């Protein structure tokens, strides 16, 4: 299934894919995908590493923002708090493409942050993924800490912990749940395609990540690379799921 490049229209691609059939073709795609993975094909490795770098950075920043923000929402009462909670739930349910569009509008040349020249860079993709993940982490942190506070409030206040101290203690007490939330956020971000496509532009050797490459290569008919990346993406999901379970099991053994 080689692709002859050039100006193929989406229509032609679709027709080609419809024509693509047969077990032997599928098998050969799997074979070349496996070859790409096991020979550590440089294009494939580059894309995988970029994906991981973008998503890990985004999730780290989202956690640094989301954890304290969620804890503050749980422990403090201030005017406008309800409004923030509603906004948070809204952001959580937002389709990723709209987040992508929003970031695009902010970063585009005529946008408010246009002068920074960030559009079509990995930084733009990190911002978009961060916006996708931070609300999830903040909302789950808020819920977790609020439930814990209900249980711990009297005890912690009796011991003499300050509100700040209590926040730190409760974040640590909720570490299993919060770690799970962060891993889930990592899963969501690494599986997402719409937002990073819009703000990253899927530029070869610059902003191409696993999901956008799969979308592009599939539509071009280059199934080998798409499949190879797909397999890796599935492995990443698997690792995340296994990580969550392993973490819970370990924590449980220690009575957390």
């Amino acid at each position, binding site marked *: 299934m080689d692709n002859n490049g050039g100006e193929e229209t989406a229509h032609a691609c679709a027709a080609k894919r419809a024509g693509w059939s047969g077990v032997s073709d599928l098998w050969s795609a799997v074979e070349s995908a496996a070859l790409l993975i096991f020979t550590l094909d440089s294009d494939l490795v580059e894309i995988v590493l970029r994906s991981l770098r973008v998503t890990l950075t985004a999730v780290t920043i989202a956690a640094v923002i989301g954890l304290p923000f969620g804890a503050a929402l749980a422990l403090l009462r201030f005017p406008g708090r309800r409004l923030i909670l509603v906004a948070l739930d809204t952001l959580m349910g937002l389709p990723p493409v709209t987040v992508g569009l929003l970031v695009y509008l902010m970063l585009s040349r005529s946008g408010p942050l246009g002068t920074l020249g960030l559009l079509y860079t990995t930084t733009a993709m990190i911002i978009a993924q961060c916006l996708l993940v931070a609300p999830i982490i903040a909302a789950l942190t808020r819920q977790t800490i609020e439930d814990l506070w209900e*249980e711990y409030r*009297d*005890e912690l206040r*009796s*011991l*003499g912990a300050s509100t700040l*101290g209590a926040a730190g203690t409760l974040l640590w*007490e909720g570490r299993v749940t919060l770690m799970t939330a962060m891993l889930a956020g990592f899963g969501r971000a690494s599986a997402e395609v719409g937002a990073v496509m819009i703000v990253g532009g899927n530029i070869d050797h610059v902003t191409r990540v696993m999901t956008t490459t799969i979308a592009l290569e599939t539509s071009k008919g280059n199934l080998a690379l798409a499949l190879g990346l797909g397999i890796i993406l599935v492995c990443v999901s698997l690792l995340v799921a296994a990580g969550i379970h392993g973490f819970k099991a370990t924590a449980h053994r220690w*009575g*957390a």
Partner: protein
Amino acid sequence: MMKPPSILPLRLDRVVLDIGGKRVIKDVSATLTAAPCSIVLGPNGAGKTLLLKLCHGLIAPTAGSVTWAGAPCGNVQHAQAMVFQQPVMLRRSVAANIAYALTVRGRPRAEQRARIDDVLARTGLRRFAESPARRLSVGEKQRLALARAWAIEPQVLFLDEPTASLDPAGTRQVEEIILAIHRGGTKVIMTTHDLQQARRLADEVMFLHRGRLYEQTPAAAFFTAPRTPEAQRFLEGTLFPNIRRVV
């Protein structure tokens, strides 16, 4: 080392507490001095837990005042400790739970280890030092809560039904610990609805019923000749909470 000034006596002046439009503590006035082991007695729902939390400063009265040697609650909480009916343990080891309390109270790390070993030994928990605290049995948790409170050497210790779900042996063990803490010079203010326990521990009894303090009497006098008919009926076991109001 200089001994810090005593925060006692504790004075309650016409303390009232309303929760959700319901008056749960009604016009309670009392003075608690440093020496006696004070037992707050009363049936379920009398308001014992709320009274303890009011004294400890965890809730503010709707009206009236709670003062410690003339000072408001907030200023002296560091000299108090409380063991709750259901103590909450942190998700870490038994020793780390005590270390946490010591750290929050500003005790230097260097002297923590010895203090932890000491109270764990005194409460029979030494072999659990490194076990996860949440895995302890109910009785062991109760002893850990006592050890944690003991470690911070409070002037006043509040205990809310510390033996409510313990077997007779566990109850004895906890009572021994409480007596030891009291002998060490700590003022004990404790609730219970176990009359036998009150007889064993009390120097003075504060009898509470439906949010009202009916009497504050030296223990011997209370058990032989209570002043109020409500206390008399409580001792006879014929005082029931008002069912109609509960429904």
